[in-house]
């Protein structure tokens, strides 16, 4: 008897999750390297028990997250340590708890000259070691990740290493850890994405799409509320009428 209310409830809890996803996307509209995500819903069919296979009730089930993998805008900062990835690929950062992958290219140097991310963890090369750059001297990062610097003393160009750019077989199977960082159990594959030095990749969230989505969600929620409200009234009436005639 209360099935309509449960069906409505299934969608409403899903919608609350989706709303918080939209809020997360909008909050990160200017976070470097952020990739938006949306929730996916699927139909969950439940037998009513009367005749198996017929008259099934459809509930909404929250299936999972879908990451938006489109390229974010490139912002020109002209800063030596800012790197932007163009194409499908991630930087590899070595954290104490294991490697994580990120599109956030705003790096700095720590006192020992190692190139580190915003939270102080080193950026890794293709051979797994961190990169050390000379202090106070300009260095160049090529499109394929090769780091070189012009040594004034020897008057020659020296190669410091090659930054690792990786991708994964299943590009959606990534767990988000922090705003622009991802964790996964899949083995990394070399990626053909290119690096642009002096630029930063902005968030790929499109505010227009998120706001429209938010409006649609809000109105959907209101309409389901109506359903719950009228169900509530119907039950109240039924209980009232039946208890009167008793």
């Amino acid at each position, binding site marked *: 008897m209360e099935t309509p209310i449960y069906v409505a409830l299934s969608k409403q809890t899903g919608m609350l999750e989706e709303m918080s996803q939209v809020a997360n996307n909008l909050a990160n509209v200017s976070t470097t390297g952020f990739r938006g995500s949306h929730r996916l819903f699927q139909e969950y069919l439940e037998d009513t028990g009367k005749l198996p296979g017929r008259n099934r009730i459809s509930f909404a089930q929250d299936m999972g997250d879908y990451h938006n993998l489109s390229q974010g805008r490139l912002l020109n900062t002209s800063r030596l340590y800012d790197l932007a990835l163009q194409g499908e690929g991630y930087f590899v950062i070595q954290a104490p708890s294991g490697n994580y992958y990120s599109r956030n290219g705003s790096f700095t140097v720590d006192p020992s000259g190692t190139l580190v991310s915003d939270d102080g963890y080193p950026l890794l090369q293709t051979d797994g070691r961190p990169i050390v750059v000379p202090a106070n001297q300009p260095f160049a990062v090529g499109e394929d990740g090769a780091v070189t610097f012009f040594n004034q003393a020897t008057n020659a160009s020296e190669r410091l290493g090659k930054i690792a750019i990786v991708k994964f077989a299943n590009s959606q199977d990534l767990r988000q850890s922090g705003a622009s960082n991802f964790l996964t159990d899949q083995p990394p594959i070399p990626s053909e994405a290119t690096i642009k030095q002096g630029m930063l990749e902005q968030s790929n969230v*499109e505010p*227009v799409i998120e706001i*429209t989505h938010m*409006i649609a969600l809000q*109105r959907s929620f*209101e309409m389901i509320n*109506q359903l719950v409200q009228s169900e509530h009234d119907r039950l109240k009436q039924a209980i009232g009428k039946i208890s009167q005639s008793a």
Partner: protein
Amino acid sequence: MRALDIASTGMLAQQLNVEVIANNLANVNTTGFKRSHAEFQDLLYQNLRRVGTETSDAGTTVPTGIQLGLGVKTAAVYRIHEQGNLQQTSNSLDLAMSGLGFFEIQMPDGTLGYSRAGSFQLSKNGEVVTQDGYLVNPGLTIPQNATSIAVSATGVVSATVAGQTTPQFVGQITVSTFINESGLQAIGNNLYKETEASGTPQTGLPGSEDRGIVSQGFLENSNVNTVSEITNLISAQRAYEMNSRVIETTNQMLGTLSALR
């Protein structure tokens, strides 16, 4: 309601339009810059009632049907290669093309890049290079004690050396034209690269066939027309506003719907 998604495609398209206009206006003083234009197309249509289907056994057909459009998409952002105005600088290495044709630049990776920006300089070896230090094809080296450099309208470069009256021949600049100039890929730094769509470069002497001539001491200004860009900006802004009105109205209509009892 479909109107929400349709209006959001409209807003996204106008957003892109403004970005193209912003790039044009930012480059209003860039030598040899060619303005871009965003071209939009309507998105596919949903056939709620297909045109031309038979309505009866007598063979009568639906004359117009119901076709619902789903919004707008960006079809292309292409460059308009109109000749820019020539500005006199009286700098002997400032060259401007009058007419069709690009200067050929030797890129560091060995391929050829093409440019309309003729603001060249001398490298430490006396070679004629661009502002990034890339050599101008076919490689021109000005002798060290040259007092003046002359570039003719057909691209003949000659230098007058101290102590000699007749100028020395240094080299011949060749220019390239393309069948589809808009198909060139812009790689920044005032440079273009050949693509499948642009066709192969037709290289030759300036002034021959359809190629333009070289003017020494002049620079080609950007061909951005600020008045028409500002007008386009205004109409893009209003189109954005109008699409946002559609979203607001749809929102109110949905509100009315959900308030029904």
